[in-house]
């Protein structure tokens, strides 16, 4: 279940990677502090009778410790694969192209709008619209997007609403 590459031979990671790693450490340390703050009202109990706050606080402290270890770690970054393997598939950090942030951002926004409109807009109206946006955002042609918008929601409707009796709204 692990991702990321195997260690290289002890080279110092590039400056960008180092800053990114520091960002990871800071985020986890921040999370640990937030958990410690949020669990201040939960009784920690005593050694022979640990309370609800015991385990989360213990975890927060461990996270804090590993965040510091990670911040101090000067290990090498993951190496690219030695094969023709698809980098995206094996969790390799080096993208084959410049990161195309627009696609996931548009997709996320479209999904957010879709979820917010769930209560008010019918499934067979909101889902084709979402499909159209997702297809276009993924670089598809208008023709393919229209075809997908007509077909995919109907398939899902047939499978879940008609077949499994799920109320899709």
């Amino acid at each position, binding site marked *: 279940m692990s991702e990321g590459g195997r260690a290289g031979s002890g080279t110092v990671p590039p400056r960008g990677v180092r800053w990114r790693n520091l960002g990871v450490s800071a985020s986890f340390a921040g999370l640990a502090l937030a*958990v410690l703050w949020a669990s201040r009202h939960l009784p920690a109990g005593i050694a022979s009778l640990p309370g609800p706050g015991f385990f989360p606080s213990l975890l927060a402290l461990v*996270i804090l410790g590993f965040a510091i270890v990670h911040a101090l770690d000067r290990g090498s970054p993951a190496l690219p694969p030695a094969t023709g393997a698809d980098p995206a598939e094996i969790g390799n950090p080096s993208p084959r192209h410049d990161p195309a942030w627009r696609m996931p951002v548009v997709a996320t926004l479209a*999904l957010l709008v879709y979820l917010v409109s769930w209560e008010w807009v019918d499934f067979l109206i909101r889902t084709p619209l979402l499909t159209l946006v997702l297809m276009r955002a993924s670089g598809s042609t208008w023709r393919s997007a229209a075809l997908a918008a007509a077909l995919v929601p109907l398939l899902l409707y047939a499978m879940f609403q008609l077949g499994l009796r799920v109320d899709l709204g």
Partner: protein
Amino acid sequence: MEALATGFTAILQPMVLLYLMGGLLMGALFGALPGLTATMGVALLTPITFWLNAEEGMAMLLGIYCGAIPAGGVPALLLNIPGTPASIAASWDGYPLSQRGEAGLALGINSVFGFIGQVTSVLFLAIAAFPIASFSLRFGPPEYFALALFGISLMAGVSGNQMAKGMLSGMLGLLVSTIGLDPMMAVARFTFGQAEFYDGIAFVPVMIGLFGVGEVFHQMLTDGASARVGSSPATPPAVLGRVLPDWAAWKRMLVPGAIGSGVGTVVGAIPAAGGDIAAVICWEQTRRLSRKPEEFGKGSIEGLAASTTACNSAIGGAMTTMLTLGIPGDAPSAILIGALLIHGVQPGPLLFRDNPALVYSIIGLMVLAALLIAVLGVVAARPLAAALRVPKPWLWTAILLLSVVGSYALSNAITDVWVMLAAGLLGLAFRWLQIPLGPLVLGLILGPMMESNLRRALILSRGDWESIFLRPIVAFLVVAALLSLVWPLIQRYRSGRKPRDPLPGPGESGG
């Protein structure tokens, strides 16, 4: 004997066989299409099993799992693009073999040795699972806590130089598992007044988000430009040639196949490493033992047989750990735990005592699945190769929509869809930041077990940590956990002094 008969009778029901076949076909698609994985397939289709009984649900999900791993070899052999992470090593020899005009032979070896790998590992499951489960019935709260600790540490240990990130990921999973009512005193924790979270964060939507939406977002990020072109740049060879190996080839592949079965099953059983790691280790070991090591990486049938057998054997190994101890051996088996929980079945030693028929059903289903996918692999190789041309926008859109509807369908709760989307964004962030997802999943699964058993152990020992850690099994597991954390550091120190050939990084194990 009654349980054996009941278990095997259950899988011969027409509907169970139908769902198994459907699962295999879906699994073959998920495995063969680059970008889709066994994990994603099992996660996306788990919600559908909510409407099925346990046997039917497991038939479908095991079909996907067992079908996707060998099918992942098809694009690896024909296009040098591994369909799943488990088939990375298969491409090293399989693709050169195809380039030599022996694509049919490569596909044949993939099918036959995939079958051998799956069946031998299921045999191991059938033989070893009941004794392991029986032994683990002796475990008390301290042992279960130590087992969970061992699982988490092992996961972080195999994250290579990402060990700290692995531990952070695992701890985050444990932390998320504490959301909801406290298991012993029913005090609400981190629910922020939302009643929907009192039962905790639903596991399946999180998995769908992490491995479905997160993967799609990451592919959009990295493959965005190529997706506009529409399809895979390479084309499969037009002529496949002979499919089944001759007698001389069989003899050469016998030992690699045996090594693959053994190594794959053992590596798969470790709650950390799946088919991808098993295949790489096995390929390397077989190369060292081979009389013709110079052929490895250039179309060696021994290398292909070893890696294919290993990645398929890992399935049975992972299932053994999952069923006997309740600890997932890889990502797909982690989701299978969630699927079993949907049906009120808790994997672990008690499953063998309370519901042995289901265990026999699972074993029987895996053997059937191995047999059917071996046939399918030979017969359907060409259509699968054609399926590789599906444009990515279609795949991405279909996965995103199925993720939304599937998450909602689980309990008709829009909260689950929000959780799924949040998990998807977290999955994207983890992939981008190179934080392994495996420990997070394991933490989520093991969290409740770890916390409740640690607290019970402390209550039973009246707060005496020493008496907990001095119990033999606990001491063994804790020392093993520490070793699994320290060993990569020693290896890193040694590799820093002595350069060595880089091996490809492991993906989400098991595909």
